[in-house]
């Protein structure tokens, strides 16, 4: 019975994480596009195509990362730095969006500057909301894998016609760090989902 319950809980968490990942990816892509909407009009068809392909991938990644975090927490007996509640998770999410925002709006002289700034920002995100080693490691792994996948995708499939080759070189500068912060964010969501339902009150005991 309890096993069934646990499985249901896992299923529920997985589905929530999946939808989180899909929606967040699509919305962020849309945001990126609309930030650049001044330069070129939105191409809704391309966006939709892109979302249909990439969002499920991101959703799967979100499931993996979001389930891995609480698991490793339990295994390594670690605890995130900030208080465990939805407010802090939302805050983390907002700052993640902020990192994306900074990425697409701030124009840096060189790619190196952009990369360093984003690295610092994502590290700061990790430091503020997570501060656990396992969080860092999982997010880094996820970022590495995601980067390889994204690079392949950009090279072969979706972006080849919609984005310029300049974008491809830029991708190297920003994608790992954004993926890292995405890992941290999804991790905090996953942790919060795995936390006991009664929230902070129960936590005091």
């Amino acid at each position, binding site marked *: 019975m309890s096993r069934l319950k646990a499985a249901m809980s896992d299923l529920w968490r997985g589905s929530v994480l999946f939808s989180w990942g899909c929606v967040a990816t699509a919305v962020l892509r849309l945001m990126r596009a*609309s930030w650049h909407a*001044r*330069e070129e009009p*939105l191409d809704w068809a391309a966006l939709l195509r892109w979302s249909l392909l990439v969002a499920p991938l991101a959703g799967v990644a979100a499931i993996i990362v979001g389930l891995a975090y609480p698991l490793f927490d339990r295994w390594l007996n670690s*605890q995130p730095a900030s208080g465990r509640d939805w407010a802090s998770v939302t805050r983390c999410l*907002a*700052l993640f969006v902020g990192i994306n925002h900074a990425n697409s709006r701030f124009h840096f002289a060189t790619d190196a500057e952009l990369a*360093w700034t984003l690295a*610092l920002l994502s*590290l700061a995100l990790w430091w503020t909301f997570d501060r656990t080693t396992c969080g860092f490691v999982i997010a880094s792994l996820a970022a590495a894998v995601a980067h390889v996948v994204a690079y392949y995708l950009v090279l072969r499939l979706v972006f080849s016609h919609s984005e310029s080759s300049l974008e491809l070189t830029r991708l190297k500068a920003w994608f790992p760090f954004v993926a890292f912060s995405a890992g941290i964010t999804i991790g905090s969501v996953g942790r919060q989902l795995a936390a006991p339902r009664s929230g902070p009150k129960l936590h005091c005991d």
Partner: protein
Amino acid sequence: MLPPGEDVTGGATGLPGRVAQMYYTYGLFAASHPKLLSSAVLTVAIICSIPVVNMHLPSNTPQELRTTGPAEEPSQPAPVWFREKPVVYIQQVLVRAAVTPWQSDMILTDAYRAPLSRVFALTETIANFQHGNGSVQDLCFRAEEPVFRSPALLDTHFPRYTCLLLSPAVLWGSDRAAFQQDSNIIETVVRQQKERFYKTTVSNLVFGVPAKETAFTRIYKRQRFLTYAVTVVLRKNDPELLAGLRHRLLELYPLHAAENGNLSSEHVHIFYPARTGVYELLPVALIYIILFIYIYFSVRKMESVKSKLAMSVSALVTVFATLMMSSGILIHHGLQQTLNSREVFPYLIVVVGFENVMVITESVSNTARDLNPRIRIAQGLSRQGWNITKNLFLEITILTIGILTFIPLIQEFCMLAVVGMCCDFFLQLGFFAATLSIDTSLQTALEDEEPAGEPSYADLRLRFPIGARGVQIQRSQSHPGTLSEPLGGPASVVKSLYSMDGLLGRLPRRLTLFYLWARSRFFQRLFSVFLVAWMGLLAYNGGLVHQLLAAVAPPPPAADQAAPAPAAAPAAAAGKLAAALLTAGEPPPPSSAATDDDLTLLRHRDPAVWHRLHDFHWMSLMRVYNVTTRGGYVTVLPPVYVSLAVSPQEALQARHPRDAEVSDRVVDRIALTLGQLEIADIDETGQPSQYPSPSSDYAYVPSSPFEVFLVVLLALPSIAFIIYLLVVLYRCVCSRNYAEWRSSWGADGQCAGDYHQQQVVLEALPLRLSGHSQQVECLQTDGQLLVSCCLAGQVRVWDAVTGDCVRVINRGTATPSPRASREDVHSDYGSGGSPPSRGERHLEQMAKRLSTPQLAQSDHQLTPTVDLTFSSRPAAAPAAADAPYDFSRFLAAREPSEDPGPAPAPRRTHRRVWSAGSAVAGAARDEDRAGAPPERGAIWCMDCSDGLLAVGCSDGSVEVWDAATGALKLVHSEVAVPVTHVRLVGARLVVARFNGTVHILTMQAVQQGVPIDWGYYSCSRPRLPTGGDELRWEAVTQLRWAGLSTARAHQQLITVLECCGGRIVTGSLDHMLRVTRLEDGSPVHTLHGHYGTVTALFVDRCRSEPATAGSGSAEGTLSVWDLTSGLCLYSVPAHDGAVTSLNCNASYILSTGGDERLCVWERFQGHLISKIALSHAYCSQVILLTSNLFVTSRQGSLMVWDLELGEPVRLVRLGDRDSSVFVRQMTPVGDAIVCDYGSELRIVRFPPVSAHQKKEH
């Protein structure tokens, strides 16, 4: 190790403690005037946010794009709007002109008229310029009729049906004659500065530069450097024609032509958005949605307040007022330039966050609910004050570093954030704390209405789970230690829940490795390395290094002319000046050094001076002719720069006959009527451009004194924080603290999620000090040494740390009293087993009073006293009611007078036994004085300080001993009245006598007849006696009496005496308290208010200047006094019987009384916080171990209590025998408590109390 009296809630001593104290004071203030304060703060916030009204609607902010050429691709990806053609092109000819050299006999208008008059020629040149087959007339925008008539000038003077060419000449209708006939050109110009049109002023339209640059905002008689522009609006861009125009103008005006030609080649395209695109709103909407979710979750956490809705609204108001206020301030100072604020705001909210608001709320709601709301607010604030301040300073430091990166976008965000944080801090403390206090007082009022709802302590603990922001105490059963082996080490130690080794013992290997990694702080180091590298990269890329290098390296001698090398400039300029003047066909002026400087100043300082106009300047300009630029863009072509030097002769020629009058009075009139001129004599030494190379955005570099001031203001907290950080780091690294710090690492890493302070009260093992043959009567300590005196008159000096007996002082013969055997019998009852009855001291004092000569006359008072005495004895100790003992006590009291020997021991029993035989004892007194040797009276009181021991005797003599060596240093025996209290205060000895007199004796250290500075000497003298030092001290130092002042403080016996901070506070049988000055014994205050004998007294020792004192009286009243004013702060009926003892710390007062209760009072208002029944605790003394632990004594044991919960925490058994011995005296020594135990002493150390306060996360 923390001192025992330390306030845990107030944090450590030092800076955090002081900060917490400040917050406490502020909290009291805020809670006293919440409505006033919150409305005042809101008003300030609203005033500060007024400039927000002028903020552009976010989507309408003009966007800029810069290209180096007209058709070239921009560096950034081109926006959509750039694909169209611009609406118009703007070509400016910027003129910087001045009369040079300035002659001292010139008048005010000379500085303006001639330079301005050149504009007519320039305008004509431009308007009629032809090049090849094109002309400016063909190319220019043909103005139609101005559609606006509101500033009259638009209608009358602006060009119509011609080229749209604006210059200051427009003010005079482009008519040189009108200009020459204008008797007051300054007024003409200044009037137009007031005429607003749309987003700009008419003056700005015609001058084409900000008003500040025109030199017409400050009028004074001296050389002025005018800047104005001729603005040509073009339909088409013909680079050839414009290049020709530029060439021609530079030919005509050759001064600084080389520099002027190279100043700027940038095309600036300014786009005025027409409407907000849906796509653009999408990201913003998303951010705001996230923001609102965040706010929702944050506010939902706010549970423990009375009115959730009101407090949530208040929190929201705080945050949004913060935003409004900070953006208002920034707009007021013109700092908001490029960042689209609507995009930054949500992040700012998230960064600033609700955390502080939440933390304050939580902290306040976790204070004891019975407290006054004022105190609750103050306590809540002071608990979190240090954290809040620390975080604020940390964030400001980080953001200041961000500002120092000189990257415009980051700078702007940082500035916004810094101002936002300061505003947030201001509003939190001003507005939120005030509303919170309203809420708290509402809550209290509501709870007061429900009388049944008085929470028991169990309730309190349920509601505030153990350790919720408070102190968690882990209890364990006490194990009676093996007292025969006092040095056997700690008997049992209760391990902390998170004890490192306890946890590690059963850890799997992976976790061990993991913790090792975590402990080595790998990521912190990595993070800081990253940070440093990032800064370095930014600084390097930002050109800072190059600039620095350029500044350090000497300027190359053959610098090319375009480079602004000031050293090379004057020589070149002089040559050019000659050329310029020759071209103008005028005789060369006398060249001087001043001229060269002037010519340097004629350079254009800021290449993009028009850029400081209003964002909508060009839009306003086109609006005059009803041409809309919305949805389109305007291209500002690189301006042509012209420098003009006007010779004084020309200035004199251009003079108007009535100009002389202008210079005298008209300026004042203008200033009066228009009220905006700044008439000041500020030197305008124009530095070469402060602005770095014309990049896309200017980094913010403070230029004006005000900006520098602001930056310094901003930098101060950062510097302070960094200094503090360095100090803390030093302390950590300092070898003394390193181990402690190091050991805290483990705990820190594991309890990262644990918010609670923990305080572990561990097992305490008493140390046994035996040696006295009889009951210990007096116990004093100076921190290092412990002095005790027994009934036998023997004084023993102990080391307070080790418990070794350092010295035995035998005053007179050391032979035991012949009555010793009887005394032993007696002491079984009197000292060994008798519980000192409550109120005993009172009775004892009554007895003393009767025995004083001047009061013994009324015999009828005797009877009730004796009756009372006898009736109270059996109540306290039933076994003692039989007659023989009473009789023996009479004998005991009498015997010393019959005994000629010097043994003082029996006499000492007066003090205890008087209650029974006071009349006889009083009678015996006279005989005593006559018969006994005067220098060896019984010891009645002692005091110990700095290794000196003062002893007050029954025969009125006062002896001063060196406690370490046992040498008698001084004797004062001039007054024969018995001594009831002595106190050593520095070099002074306060002696209270039996008759209510206070003598203040001053001692002086003498070294071979020469007085030594006592204070110096007592400080430098080694505290712990070691062989050599002791001898030296012995050999060279003598003490002598240096002064005596007498204060007749009371008419009757002094019952209590305290010395603190230069004041002596005494309480007496006469129901009064006296405050006496220590220096001269002069009275300061007499405190009336008690209706009974003053039985207990405390003076607040928290500050150097005694601020408050409290006293308790025999009728049970507790009064608290303000010692500076002598006023009674409050007086409460505390106990049913007499108040037997008082003690206080920073926030509470503890009192014990004859009703066997211990009461805890809130200190500032006198509210009863808790009442603890002390059954069979026959000791009136209470010692505060920490701010919330106190110790009482009971039969054979000490009891440690938690003050806030009112529950016993631990019982410390003093002996393993039956607990029949009563502890009579306790005194704190460091972190230990010394108490008597029959004829022995016990030192009970409480080390666990002072250690291991878990660092709050």
